[in-house]
């Protein structure tokens, strides 16, 4: 078990190093942002001076070496736009992203799982069909469009909640619902499928034959045997929610990591893009590691050599 974990951790570390290399190459291969950063009335010499101060006039390999050396210490340089430590800016936005992803996760877990169970217990009824149609919509509609339509209806037309920004719980409802919709649909379908499989299994028939009530059978025996893949998937979804809030945060002007990333990409603020990518990749990798661990702890049948 420990050996397995160690192997996985080393693998994760390699993956993060790979991510750092890839993001550096993608950003730096097409030139530098000096000209875009300076005001329009700048002269060539003023732009070149800025370029030199940032070190963009050095050969790519030298730039990479210095990037790698400081990145190893967790220092990704100063943001070109804000002139503050780039990783600090990314970490500053993390609480907002966690708040949003956490709420979306509650929606996923508290709506997705029960809806899936219900749907499986009452197959081919209106409950089942309604749930499945909603799940299909959730899996098919683009996140940002759902967000825009929610804004149009609940913020612009009805005026019940603010259209964007962070604040109290009213600001949180629409973005959390938008972000959680896709994952809710996924969890719901997974729960339904897992439950149907278990309900069809032999021991369920035995249980029913023993005269246990339908509800007790389904919830007691059914869920107990179907929950392993569900919990695993919930863990994966939490990682996706934390790293996938880019578009939702942009639509709702939510001051999180994802919105910072989009702004930084648009402004060619390379150190900030690199920081955000590494931060989200780390969260994602660590969460996946945790899910594996959870899986190992929960399922005694699995033995790791």
């Amino acid at each position, binding site marked *: 078990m420990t050996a397995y974990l160690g192997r996985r951790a080393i693998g994760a570390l390699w993956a993060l190093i790979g991510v750092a290399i890839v993001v550096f190459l993608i950003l730096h291969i097409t030139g530098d942002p000096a000209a875009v950063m300076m005001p*329009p009335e700048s002269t060539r010499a003023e732009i070149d001076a800025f370029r030199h101060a940032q070190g963009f006039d050095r050969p790519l390999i030298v730039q990479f070496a210095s990037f790698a050396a400081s990145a190893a210490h967790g220092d990704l340089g100063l943001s070109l736009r804000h002139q503050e430590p780039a990783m600090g800016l990314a970490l500053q936005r993390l609480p907002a992203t966690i708040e949003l992803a956490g709420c979306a996760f509650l929606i996923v877990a508290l709506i997705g799982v029960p809806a899936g169970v219900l749907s499986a217990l009452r197959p081919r009824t209106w409950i089942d069909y309604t749930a499945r149609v909603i799940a299909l919509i959730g899996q098919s509609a683009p996140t940002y469009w759902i967000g825009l339509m929610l804004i149009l209806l609940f913020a*612009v037309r009805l005026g019940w909640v*603010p259209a964007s920004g962070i604040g109290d719980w009213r600001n949180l409802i629409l973005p959390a619902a938008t972000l959680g919709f896709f994952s809710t649909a996924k969890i719901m379908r997974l729960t339904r499928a897992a439950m149907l499989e278990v309900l069809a299994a032999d021991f369920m028939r035995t249980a029913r034959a023993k005269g246990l009530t339908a509800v007790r059978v389904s919830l007691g025996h059914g869920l107990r045997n179907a*929950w392993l893949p569900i*919990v695993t998937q919930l863990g994966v979804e939490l990682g996706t929610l934390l790293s996938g809030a880019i578009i939702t945060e942009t639509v709702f*002007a939510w001051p999180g990591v994802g919105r910072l990333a989009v702004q930084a990409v648009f402004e060619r603020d390379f150190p900030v893009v690199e920081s955000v990518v590494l931060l989200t990749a780390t969260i994602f990798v660590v969460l996946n590691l945790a899910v594996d661990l959870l899986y190992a702890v929960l399922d005694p049948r699995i033995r790791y050599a």
Partner: protein
Amino acid sequence: MKRVLMLLFGATLALAPAMPLRAADPPGATVTISQGVDADTLNPLLTTITPTFNVTDQIYDRLADRGSKPGELIPLLALSWKRLNPTTEEYKLRHNVVFSNGDPFTSADVRFSVDWIRNPANNSKQTPYIRDIDRVETPDAYTVRFISKTPLAIPPGQQNLFRIVDAKYFKEKGNAYVGEHPIGTGPYVLREWRRDDQTIMDANPKWWGGKPKVEHVIFKAIPEAAARVAALRTGATDLITNVPSQYQTQLAGGQSTKLVSTRSLRQLFIAFNTLTPGPQQNKLVRQALNYAVDVPSIVKNVLGGRGYELTSPIPPNYFGYDASVPGYKHDVAKAKELLAKAGYPDGKGLSLVVNAPIGRYNRDREVAEAIAGQFKTVGIDATVRAQEWVSYSDQNNRRALTPLYELGWNQPSADADGIVTSLFMSTAPLSCYKNDEVDKLADQARGELDVAKRKALYKKIALVLHDDPPWIVLFEYEDLYATSKRLHWQPRGDESIRANEMSVS
């Protein structure tokens, strides 16, 4: 199993921070201002972005401020200024001014601010603001002299007025810290800055200008236009910028909202890239295209009437404007005649691309589309190539946008010098135009200290630019703001917002 699920939920709850509690508002009038974006930094010497300045200018002062007339300056931290000789401008500073941390304001702070911008280690993007200042002298604590290398019509340091920071504080705390914790001499002090959310400021009790009528100012960025309008209507904000014209009737007639507007110093134009080969190098084609465009129709249909047709690149609200310089009026017959003379009868053989940015200027792409449509009416095949701003400005800097490209320009000094030097002199990085006479006249005008002679030189330049057009001259915008009815405020043409000029009823 139940325990594990509980654990999982518990962990999520623990991760999510507690809902922020709304602190009880202190007494006094509060005004909330919503621009499209938040400030980049609260260090006023770093960037050149208007929304950032609108936040930092509540906290920091400059030596002087722009007045409503071209070239007019109103004393702020400087009380008076005069030219000692053709290359030296001397400023007498206001006494007994303190920074909000109690540090006294002296000439050393002015000098430090210039040096800070100039120091490459600070990565300031304001280096163009101080490029004319060769040296700064501080004969005493309340006198500053800016010295330029050559005589300049616009004194060094006045092309773009920079902000003054506390030298002692900057040196003590370092760049990263001062970017988030501003200390200035201005009308407001920072209470709290939550990035990409809101910036809260309170009136500065130590401000030399007295007590502002509005005691608390909140800048709350709202990127989407529709969301800004909704926020104003629900009372969540008091002032919104960049109101799309389709909302004007709704907001003007609103129960609690009103529309305020002003003529902007920003003009939009279509430039010809005469440095790359193509039909746009032919003067006759450029003249014809100027005749082909119906500016009043664009102002009416695309801007909802919120714009002012221009006849020359030097607009009436700038120093250097001369009403006798002729313009191009919409004239399809004349356009066709000139095109035939240039060898393109009925526009045959002419295929033009109009480059345009997306979302940089009000209705930028729509205007380009409308112009391409009007080119079609004189027989020219025209298409629009629109791109998001960063890749667009990147190509613009490399002079790679061709044959036609759209650009907007706003010169806060309201002086023809900025337009001519940055956009028409062949040495300027943004210029895709070369006319030896313009180069010569522009150089002369820059160093001409006699106001009347300088004005005459800009008239000459405008006449050359009419005959050998570098642009299709279009219009100046009317900047649209909307406010709550309780707010009293007059907007300015340079897009800046000053909370100390506001009052509420």
